[in-house]
Protein backbone atom coordinates (compact mmCIF):
# COMPACT_ATOMS: atom_id res chain seq x y z
CA UNK A 1 0.00 0.00 0.00
CA UNK A 2 2.93 2.34 0.76
CA UNK A 3 4.46 1.70 -2.71
CA UNK A 4 1.11 2.43 -4.33
CA UNK A 5 0.85 5.71 -2.44
CA UNK A 6 4.38 6.67 -3.54
CA UNK A 7 3.52 5.82 -7.17
CA UNK A 8 0.38 7.91 -7.14
CA UNK A 9 2.10 10.80 -5.39
CA UNK A 10 4.82 10.71 -8.06
CA UNK A 11 2.19 10.79 -10.80
CA UNK A 12 0.55 13.69 -9.01
CA UNK A 13 3.81 15.65 -8.87
CA UNK A 14 4.68 14.82 -12.51
CA UNK A 15 1.32 15.85 -13.88
CA UNK A 16 1.18 19.03 -11.79
CA UNK A 17 4.79 19.92 -12.75
CA UNK A 18 4.27 19.30 -16.47
CA UNK A 19 1.45 21.72 -16.96
CA UNK A 20 2.93 24.35 -14.78
CA UNK A 21 6.06 24.51 -16.95
CA UNK A 22 4.32 25.42 -20.21
CA UNK A 23 2.44 28.56 -21.05
CA UNK A 24 -1.35 28.42 -20.90
CA UNK A 25 -2.58 27.57 -24.37
CA UNK A 26 -5.44 28.02 -26.77
CA UNK A 27 -7.59 24.87 -26.66
CA UNK A 28 -9.91 24.26 -29.60
CA UNK A 29 -12.93 21.94 -29.80
CA UNK A 30 -13.35 18.76 -31.82
CA UNK A 31 -10.97 16.46 -29.95
CA UNK A 32 -11.96 13.04 -28.58
CA UNK A 33 -10.10 11.55 -25.63
CA UNK A 34 -10.07 7.83 -24.82
CA UNK A 35 -8.43 6.50 -21.72
CA UNK A 36 -8.42 4.23 -18.73
CA UNK A 37 -8.35 4.74 -14.99
CA UNK A 38 -5.20 3.04 -13.70
CA UNK A 39 -5.51 3.01 -9.90
CA UNK A 40 -8.26 0.37 -9.88
CA UNK A 41 -6.17 -2.55 -11.20
CA UNK A 42 -3.17 -1.45 -9.14
CA UNK A 43 -5.17 -1.39 -5.92
CA UNK A 44 -6.64 -4.80 -6.79
CA UNK A 45 -3.10 -6.21 -6.97
CA UNK A 46 -2.63 -5.47 -3.28
CA UNK A 47 -6.23 -5.72 -2.07
CA UNK A 48 -8.31 -8.25 -3.97
CA UNK A 49 -11.52 -7.33 -2.14
CA UNK A 50 -12.34 -4.55 -4.63
CA UNK A 51 -11.82 -4.51 -8.39
CA UNK A 52 -12.70 -1.34 -10.29
CA UNK A 53 -12.15 -1.23 -14.07
CA UNK A 54 -13.03 2.11 -15.56
CA UNK A 55 -12.79 3.77 -18.96
CA UNK A 56 -12.69 7.41 -19.90
CA UNK A 57 -14.22 9.05 -22.97
CA UNK A 58 -14.20 12.79 -23.51
CA UNK A 59 -15.17 15.22 -26.21
CA UNK A 60 -13.75 18.72 -26.13
CA UNK A 61 -16.50 21.18 -27.00
CA UNK A 62 -14.35 24.30 -26.90
CA UNK A 63 -11.53 25.90 -24.98
CA UNK A 64 -13.36 25.56 -21.71
CA UNK A 65 -15.86 22.68 -21.69
CA UNK A 66 -15.58 18.94 -22.15
CA UNK A 67 -18.27 16.26 -22.27
CA UNK A 68 -17.17 13.25 -20.20
CA UNK A 69 -18.44 9.66 -20.08
CA UNK A 70 -16.84 7.13 -17.71
CA UNK A 71 -18.16 3.54 -18.03
CA UNK A 72 -16.93 0.70 -15.89
CA UNK A 73 -17.44 -2.47 -13.91
CA UNK A 74 -16.64 -3.19 -10.28
CA UNK A 75 -16.78 -6.08 -7.83
CA UNK A 76 -16.51 -5.87 -4.05
CA UNK A 77 -16.39 -8.32 -1.17
CA UNK A 78 -16.18 -7.66 2.55
CA UNK A 79 -16.11 -9.90 5.61
CA UNK A 80 -16.06 -9.17 9.32
CA UNK A 81 -17.00 -10.98 12.51
CA UNK A 82 -20.77 -10.64 12.06
CA UNK A 83 -21.40 -10.66 8.29
CA UNK A 84 -20.10 -11.34 4.80
CA UNK A 85 -21.07 -9.13 1.85
CA UNK A 86 -20.48 -8.99 -1.89
CA UNK A 87 -21.64 -6.79 -4.74
CA UNK A 88 -20.77 -6.41 -8.41
CA UNK A 89 -22.07 -4.77 -11.54
CA UNK A 90 -21.86 -2.00 -14.10
CA UNK A 91 -21.80 1.76 -13.83
CA UNK A 92 -21.61 4.85 -15.97
CA UNK A 93 -20.84 8.45 -15.03
CA UNK A 94 -21.58 11.26 -17.45
CA UNK A 95 -21.16 15.00 -17.20
CA UNK A 96 -18.94 17.95 -17.94
CA UNK A 97 -15.47 19.22 -17.10
CA UNK A 98 -14.57 22.88 -17.03
CA UNK A 99 -11.00 23.94 -17.74
CA UNK A 100 -9.91 26.82 -15.53
CA UNK A 101 -6.73 27.43 -17.52
CA UNK A 102 -7.03 30.57 -19.62
CA UNK A 103 -5.78 30.09 -23.21
CA UNK A 104 -3.07 32.43 -24.41
CA UNK A 105 -0.55 31.37 -26.99
CA UNK A 106 -0.52 28.08 -28.92
CA UNK A 107 -2.53 24.84 -29.13
CA UNK A 108 -2.06 22.55 -26.14
CA UNK A 109 -3.90 19.95 -24.16
CA UNK A 110 -3.34 20.74 -20.52
CA UNK A 111 -6.21 20.78 -18.11
CA UNK A 112 -6.73 22.07 -14.61
CA UNK A 113 -10.30 22.43 -13.53
CA UNK A 114 -13.52 21.13 -12.10
CA UNK A 115 -16.06 18.55 -13.14
CA UNK A 116 -19.58 17.42 -12.36
CA UNK A 117 -21.08 14.03 -13.18
CA UNK A 118 -24.32 12.12 -12.81
CA UNK A 119 -23.79 8.44 -12.02
CA UNK A 120 -25.91 5.35 -12.58
CA UNK A 121 -25.00 1.96 -11.12
CA UNK A 122 -26.67 -1.39 -11.92
CA UNK A 123 -25.50 -4.23 -9.71
CA UNK A 124 -26.28 -7.31 -7.65
CA UNK A 125 -25.60 -7.58 -3.94
CA UNK A 126 -25.73 -10.49 -1.52
CA UNK A 127 -25.15 -11.25 2.15
CA UNK A 128 -24.37 -14.99 2.15
CA UNK A 129 -23.93 -15.08 5.94
CA UNK A 130 -24.65 -12.86 8.92
CA UNK A 131 -25.18 -13.47 12.63
CA UNK A 132 -26.89 -11.77 15.54
CA UNK A 133 -26.09 -12.71 19.14
CA UNK A 134 -27.80 -11.70 22.34
CA UNK A 135 -29.14 -13.12 25.63
CA UNK A 136 -31.18 -15.76 23.79
CA UNK A 137 -28.27 -17.07 21.71
CA UNK A 138 -26.91 -16.70 18.18
CA UNK A 139 -29.06 -16.50 15.08
CA UNK A 140 -27.44 -17.06 11.69
CA UNK A 141 -29.16 -15.75 8.57
CA UNK A 142 -28.50 -14.71 4.97
CA UNK A 143 -29.91 -12.26 2.43
CA UNK A 144 -30.28 -13.60 -1.10
CA UNK A 145 -28.76 -11.99 -4.16
CA UNK A 146 -30.82 -9.04 -5.40
CA UNK A 147 -30.59 -6.55 -8.25
CA UNK A 148 -30.16 -2.92 -7.22
CA UNK A 149 -29.96 0.35 -9.15
CA UNK A 150 -28.43 3.46 -7.63
CA UNK A 151 -28.08 7.10 -8.67
CA UNK A 152 -25.47 9.58 -7.47
CA UNK A 153 -23.79 12.87 -8.32
CA UNK A 154 -20.10 13.68 -8.28
CA UNK A 155 -17.96 16.81 -8.19
CA UNK A 156 -14.28 16.70 -8.95
CA UNK A 157 -11.15 18.79 -9.24
CA UNK A 158 -8.05 17.70 -11.08
CA UNK A 159 -5.14 18.16 -13.41
CA UNK A 160 -4.11 16.59 -16.73
CA UNK A 161 -0.78 17.14 -18.43
CA UNK A 162 0.42 16.21 -21.92
CA UNK A 163 3.53 14.11 -21.39
CA UNK A 164 3.88 13.00 -25.02
CA UNK A 165 2.10 14.27 -28.12
CA UNK A 166 -1.61 13.57 -27.58
CA UNK A 167 -0.92 11.39 -24.52
CA UNK A 168 -2.10 12.80 -21.21
CA UNK A 169 -1.80 11.66 -17.64
CA UNK A 170 -3.80 13.17 -14.85
CA UNK A 171 -5.39 12.81 -11.47
CA UNK A 172 -8.58 14.03 -9.91
CA UNK A 173 -10.02 14.19 -6.42
CA UNK A 174 -13.72 13.39 -6.35
CA UNK A 175 -16.59 13.61 -3.91
CA UNK A 176 -19.82 11.67 -4.49
CA UNK A 177 -23.27 11.91 -2.96
CA UNK A 178 -25.84 9.12 -3.16
CA UNK A 179 -29.22 10.32 -4.41
CA UNK A 180 -31.24 7.09 -4.45
CA UNK A 181 -30.79 3.33 -4.16
CA UNK A 182 -33.54 0.80 -4.81
CA UNK A 183 -32.60 -1.74 -2.10
CA UNK A 184 -34.43 0.18 0.63
CA UNK A 185 -33.50 0.76 4.27
CA UNK A 186 -33.34 -2.91 5.18
CA UNK A 187 -30.68 -3.84 2.61
CA UNK A 188 -28.70 -0.65 2.08
CA UNK A 189 -25.68 -1.45 -0.11
CA UNK A 190 -22.26 -1.50 1.51
CA UNK A 191 -20.59 -0.74 -1.83
CA UNK A 192 -22.03 0.75 -5.02
CA UNK A 193 -20.02 0.17 -8.22
CA UNK A 194 -18.89 3.52 -9.61
CA UNK A 195 -19.50 5.30 -6.34
CA UNK A 196 -17.65 3.30 -3.71
CA UNK A 197 -18.53 2.52 -0.12
CA UNK A 198 -21.77 4.03 1.11
CA UNK A 199 -22.49 5.89 4.32
CA UNK A 200 -23.51 9.35 5.38
CA UNK A 201 -22.50 12.42 3.42
CA UNK A 202 -19.99 12.88 0.65
CA UNK A 203 -17.81 9.91 -0.27
CA UNK A 204 -14.24 10.78 -1.36
CA UNK A 205 -12.26 9.15 -4.12
CA UNK A 206 -9.14 9.63 -6.25
CA UNK A 207 -8.71 8.75 -9.91
CA UNK A 208 -5.62 8.51 -12.10
CA UNK A 209 -5.98 8.43 -15.87
CA UNK A 210 -3.93 7.80 -18.98
CA UNK A 211 -5.65 9.36 -22.00
CA UNK A 212 -5.06 9.28 -25.73
CA UNK A 213 -6.34 12.29 -27.63
CA UNK A 214 -7.73 11.86 -31.16
CA UNK A 215 -8.21 15.16 -33.03
CA UNK A 216 -11.22 14.99 -35.31
CA UNK A 217 -9.99 17.96 -37.33
CA UNK A 218 -6.57 18.58 -38.91
CA UNK A 219 -4.27 21.00 -37.17
CA UNK A 220 -5.57 20.36 -33.66
Amino acid sequence: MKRISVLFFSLFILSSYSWSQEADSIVAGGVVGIGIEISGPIIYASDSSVLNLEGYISYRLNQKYYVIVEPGIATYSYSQYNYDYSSGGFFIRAGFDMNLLKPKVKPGNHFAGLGVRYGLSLFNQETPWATSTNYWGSYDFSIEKRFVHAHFIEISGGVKAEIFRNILIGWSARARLLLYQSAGKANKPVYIPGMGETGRGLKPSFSYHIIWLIPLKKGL
Partner: protein
Amino acid sequence: MPGRLLFVITLLIFTGILAGCSSGSCDEPTESMVNMTFRLTDAETNSSIDSITVFGIGMEEELIYDTVKTKQISLPLYPDANSLQFVIRRGYRDDTLTIEYESEIRFISKECGYAFFYQVINIYNSHNWINNTIIINPDISPGDEENIRTFF
Protein backbone atom coordinates in the same frame (compact mmCIF):
# COMPACT_ATOMS: atom_id res chain seq x y z
CA MET B 1 -4.72 33.47 -10.51
CA PRO B 2 -5.85 30.13 -12.01
CA GLY B 3 -3.05 28.38 -10.09
CA ARG B 4 -4.15 29.90 -6.79
CA LEU B 5 -7.81 29.21 -7.55
CA LEU B 6 -7.04 25.58 -8.34
CA PHE B 7 -5.00 25.29 -5.17
CA VAL B 8 -7.89 26.59 -3.06
CA ILE B 9 -10.40 24.29 -4.78
CA THR B 10 -8.15 21.27 -4.33
CA LEU B 11 -7.59 22.17 -0.68
CA LEU B 12 -11.35 22.35 -0.12
CA ILE B 13 -11.89 18.97 -1.74
CA PHE B 14 -9.09 17.40 0.30
CA THR B 15 -10.54 18.88 3.48
CA GLY B 16 -13.92 17.46 2.65
CA ILE B 17 -12.34 14.11 1.95
CA LEU B 18 -10.56 14.01 5.31
CA ALA B 19 -13.71 15.09 7.12
CA GLY B 20 -15.62 12.25 5.50
CA CYS B 21 -13.22 9.51 6.51
CA SER B 22 -14.77 6.63 8.47
CA SER B 23 -13.78 5.98 12.09
CA GLY B 24 -13.48 2.25 11.31
CA SER B 25 -15.48 1.05 14.37
CA CYS B 26 -19.15 0.62 15.16
CA ASP B 27 -20.24 3.67 17.17
CA GLU B 28 -23.99 3.07 17.07
CA PRO B 29 -26.17 0.93 19.34
CA THR B 30 -27.39 -2.12 17.44
CA GLU B 31 -29.47 -4.20 19.84
CA SER B 32 -33.18 -3.47 19.99
CA MET B 33 -34.75 -4.21 23.40
CA VAL B 34 -38.21 -3.75 24.91
CA ASN B 35 -37.92 -0.94 27.47
CA MET B 36 -40.32 -1.53 30.32
CA THR B 37 -41.19 0.99 33.04
CA PHE B 38 -43.14 0.65 36.28
CA ARG B 39 -45.93 2.75 37.79
CA LEU B 40 -48.16 2.47 40.81
CA THR B 41 -51.72 1.88 39.58
CA ASP B 42 -53.08 5.28 40.65
CA ALA B 43 -49.91 7.31 40.08
CA GLU B 44 -49.29 9.83 37.33
CA THR B 45 -45.57 9.27 36.95
CA ASN B 46 -43.31 6.25 36.70
CA SER B 47 -41.51 5.02 39.81
CA SER B 48 -38.57 2.89 40.87
CA ILE B 49 -39.23 -0.64 41.94
CA ASP B 50 -37.22 -2.59 44.52
CA SER B 51 -35.66 -6.02 44.26
CA ILE B 52 -36.50 -6.92 40.66
CA THR B 53 -35.16 -10.14 39.16
CA VAL B 54 -35.81 -10.93 35.49
CA PHE B 55 -35.00 -13.93 33.30
CA GLY B 56 -36.33 -15.59 30.15
CA ILE B 57 -38.36 -18.78 30.41
CA GLY B 58 -36.02 -21.53 29.28
CA MET B 59 -33.01 -19.44 30.38
CA GLU B 60 -33.45 -19.75 34.18
CA GLU B 61 -29.71 -20.03 34.83
CA GLU B 62 -28.99 -16.68 33.19
CA LEU B 63 -30.52 -13.66 34.85
CA ILE B 64 -31.13 -10.49 32.87
CA TYR B 65 -31.52 -8.54 36.14
CA ASP B 66 -30.62 -9.88 39.61
CA THR B 67 -32.32 -8.22 42.57
CA VAL B 68 -31.95 -4.64 41.36
CA LYS B 69 -33.74 -1.43 42.18
CA THR B 70 -34.56 0.36 38.96
CA LYS B 71 -37.01 2.62 37.11
CA GLN B 72 -36.72 0.81 33.79
CA ILE B 73 -35.64 -2.59 32.52
CA SER B 74 -34.75 -3.68 28.97
CA LEU B 75 -35.90 -7.07 27.69
CA PRO B 76 -34.04 -8.70 24.76
CA LEU B 77 -35.96 -10.34 21.90
CA TYR B 78 -34.87 -13.18 19.61
CA PRO B 79 -35.07 -12.63 15.83
CA ASP B 80 -36.14 -16.18 14.97
CA ALA B 81 -39.16 -16.22 17.27
CA ASN B 82 -42.45 -14.30 17.36
CA SER B 83 -43.29 -14.78 21.03
CA LEU B 84 -41.18 -14.84 24.20
CA GLN B 85 -41.92 -15.20 27.90
CA PHE B 86 -40.12 -13.55 30.79
CA VAL B 87 -40.39 -14.05 34.56
CA ILE B 88 -40.55 -10.73 36.42
CA ARG B 89 -39.86 -11.47 40.10
CA ARG B 90 -40.48 -8.84 42.76
CA GLY B 91 -39.31 -9.98 46.14
CA TYR B 92 -40.71 -13.51 46.37
CA ARG B 93 -43.60 -13.11 43.92
CA ASP B 94 -43.32 -14.06 40.25
CA ASP B 95 -45.34 -12.89 37.30
CA THR B 96 -44.96 -14.06 33.71
CA LEU B 97 -44.89 -11.51 30.89
CA THR B 98 -45.55 -12.73 27.31
CA ILE B 99 -44.54 -10.52 24.39
CA GLU B 100 -45.77 -11.26 20.86
CA TYR B 101 -43.86 -9.44 18.12
CA GLU B 102 -42.66 -9.29 14.52
CA SER B 103 -39.03 -8.78 13.54
CA GLU B 104 -37.44 -6.83 10.68
CA ILE B 105 -33.80 -6.79 9.64
CA ARG B 106 -32.01 -3.58 8.72
CA PHE B 107 -28.48 -2.76 7.61
CA ILE B 108 -26.92 -0.21 9.98
CA SER B 109 -23.47 0.53 8.55
CA LYS B 110 -20.38 -1.23 7.18
CA GLU B 111 -18.77 -1.16 10.62
CA CYS B 112 -21.85 -2.35 12.56
CA GLY B 113 -23.44 -4.74 10.09
CA TYR B 114 -27.08 -5.75 10.47
CA ALA B 115 -29.50 -5.26 13.36
CA PHE B 116 -33.02 -6.47 14.09
CA PHE B 117 -35.90 -4.11 14.78
CA TYR B 118 -39.20 -5.33 16.21
CA GLN B 119 -42.88 -4.43 16.36
CA VAL B 120 -44.76 -5.48 19.52
CA ILE B 121 -48.16 -6.90 18.58
CA ASN B 122 -49.49 -7.98 21.95
CA ILE B 123 -48.52 -8.43 25.60
CA TYR B 124 -50.00 -10.60 28.36
CA ASN B 125 -49.12 -10.92 32.01
CA SER B 126 -50.12 -12.97 35.03
CA HIS B 127 -51.46 -11.07 38.08
CA ASN B 128 -49.56 -12.00 41.21
CA TRP B 129 -48.05 -8.55 41.78
CA ILE B 130 -48.61 -6.94 38.33
CA ASN B 131 -52.05 -5.38 37.76
CA ASN B 132 -51.73 -4.53 34.09
CA THR B 133 -49.21 -3.91 31.31
CA ILE B 134 -49.85 -1.60 28.35
CA ILE B 135 -47.99 -0.84 25.10
CA ILE B 136 -46.72 2.75 24.97
CA ASN B 137 -44.62 2.49 21.79
CA PRO B 138 -44.73 -0.77 19.78
CA ASP B 139 -41.66 0.11 17.66
CA ILE B 140 -38.65 -1.57 19.23
CA SER B 141 -35.33 -0.05 18.12
CA PRO B 142 -31.92 0.60 19.71
CA GLY B 143 -32.36 3.27 22.38
CA ASP B 144 -34.00 3.76 25.76
CA GLU B 145 -37.41 5.08 24.76
CA GLU B 146 -40.28 3.62 26.85
CA ASN B 147 -42.08 0.77 25.03
CA ILE B 148 -44.33 -0.89 27.67
CA ARG B 149 -45.54 0.21 31.10
CA THR B 150 -46.37 -2.12 33.99
CA PHE B 151 -48.86 -1.05 36.65
CA PHE B 152 -48.59 -2.65 40.08
